[in-house]
């Protein structure tokens, strides 16, 4: 199957999981990345890209009205761009770090845009309730219920369209950028996968600042260190 179509179908399905409240959690970036990797024939690189995005957002929890970014679409976008751009002839395989950075930047944009689109949809979705009320008023209850389920098609379509557009436009752009910048500037970026997850570690630390949980966080940290000290 065409890789753009595979990635877009997957994104549509994961948007359903994420936005329809099915919430099996297969839409988390680490899982979305792996699934995109399988769809595009490179699960290892898909898992890597998805895991880096996931690790950056580990401590993000939807409390105090903080809106959730659309990480489902972000996960598919980062893995698809990363895998397909690396496959491009103009990209040196040693430029992986740079390709990952550009793919992550695009995925962050997709995640933020997805959230914006969702908020916009929420502010307009009352028309569905209005239509359902009208149908219920005429005694057509099953149809009123069907209005609710019709929104599933919208979630799928948004995921599909956004990912198709991002992958179609993004792969050549990422490949061109990576080809143009590759050299002294890009080589050190191979250390990114080792450093970016610290962002998630910091937000996890913030989540566990209480007395008991702070102690357990420290216990986990020290246990690993002690094990390694004794092993060496």
């Amino acid at each position: 199957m065409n890789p753009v179509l595979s990635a877009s179908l997957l994104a549509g399905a994961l948007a359903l999981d994420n936005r329809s409240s099915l919430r099996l959690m297969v839409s988390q970036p680490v899982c979305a990345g792996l699934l995109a990797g399988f769809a595009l024939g490179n699960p290892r690189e898909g898992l890597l890209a998805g895991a880096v995005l996931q690790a950056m957002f580990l401590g993000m929890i939807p409390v105090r009205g903080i809106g959730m970014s659309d990480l489902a679409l972000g996960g598919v976008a980062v893995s698809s761009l990363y895998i397909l751009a690396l496959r491009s002839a103009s990209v040196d395989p040693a430029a992986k770090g740079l390709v990952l950075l550009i793919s992550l930047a695009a995925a962050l944009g997709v995640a933020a845009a997805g959230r914006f689109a969702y908020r916009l949809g929420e502010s307009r979705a009352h028309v569905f309730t209005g239509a359902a009320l009208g149908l219920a008023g005429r005694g057509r209850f099953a149809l009123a219920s069907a209005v609710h389920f019709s929104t599933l098609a919208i979630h799928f379509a948004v995921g599909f369209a956004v990912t198709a557009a991002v992958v179609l436009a993004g792969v050549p752009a990422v490949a061109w950028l990576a080809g143009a910048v590759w050299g002294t500037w890009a080589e050190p970026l191979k250390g990114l996968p080792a450093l970016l997850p610290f962002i998630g570690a910091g937000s996890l630390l913030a989540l566990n600042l209480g007395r008991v949980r702070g102690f357990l966080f420290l216990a986990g940290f020290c246990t690993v260190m002690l094990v390694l000290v004794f092993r060496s």
Partner: protein
Amino acid sequence: MENDRRSEGVWVETGDALPARRGSRAAFVKEHGNAIWRLFFIQSSRNDRTLDGLGFFSIVEPFLSKCSRPGEDAKAFARRHLGYFNAGLYLSSAVAGVVVNLERKRARGEPVAVERIESVKAALSSALAARANYFFDALLVPLGLTIASISAMYGSYAGLIAFLVLYNIYHFQSRIGGYCRGVELGEGVGGAFVARLYREERLIGGCAAFAAGVFAALLFLRARDAGGARFVVWGAVVCAASAALAKRPSFVRTVAVLAAATALFLVIGGIVS
């Protein structure tokens, strides 16, 4: 004593199956199957005015003919349940179950006022949502994702599978189990039910904190192997900055700034060395 309390709708913790469920699982599924699959799409049409009102209606809609009293307008029933509804994701099913229970009692002619159903729906919505959201969003999901991330760092899928299994056990227990309990117990669903459902809350919270510590330690070790002391120091700086900025409203902006700073650090470091 316990039988008296059960008849009042209080769930007594004996570990026994409840009378309504004994030997009637197939009948229950046959009767409620059409509502159960709908539970999983309740937030699909979420909007700013009625939130999940339309989703809630889609769940109770299969009971419309059974729950309307003879001679009473089914349209009034539909309009009542198309209004505002906000019970979070995980225990909205329990609220739906309670409403189905009360509406059916009312349809049988028992003295259950419409106002009573509305007030129970509103009260349970807020009480159950807060507890369930905290358990899932602040404890279980971070724990599972931390485990998945640790295993993914080493190229393994095992942690991811463990996360999906662990999460979905509680997830299905809350959504399908919550609905079933709501239908069986009616207004009796409440603190005891939620406490039992999430009795491992403290353990999960502790494990989440411990796993986060393990994750942080492994990151420092990977950073040392990848770039020596320079990487370790930068990792500590990023970690501290992220912890300080974690409660800002725009998490994406925080992540973007720290990722850009890390890329800049690597590029400058590469040029200097």
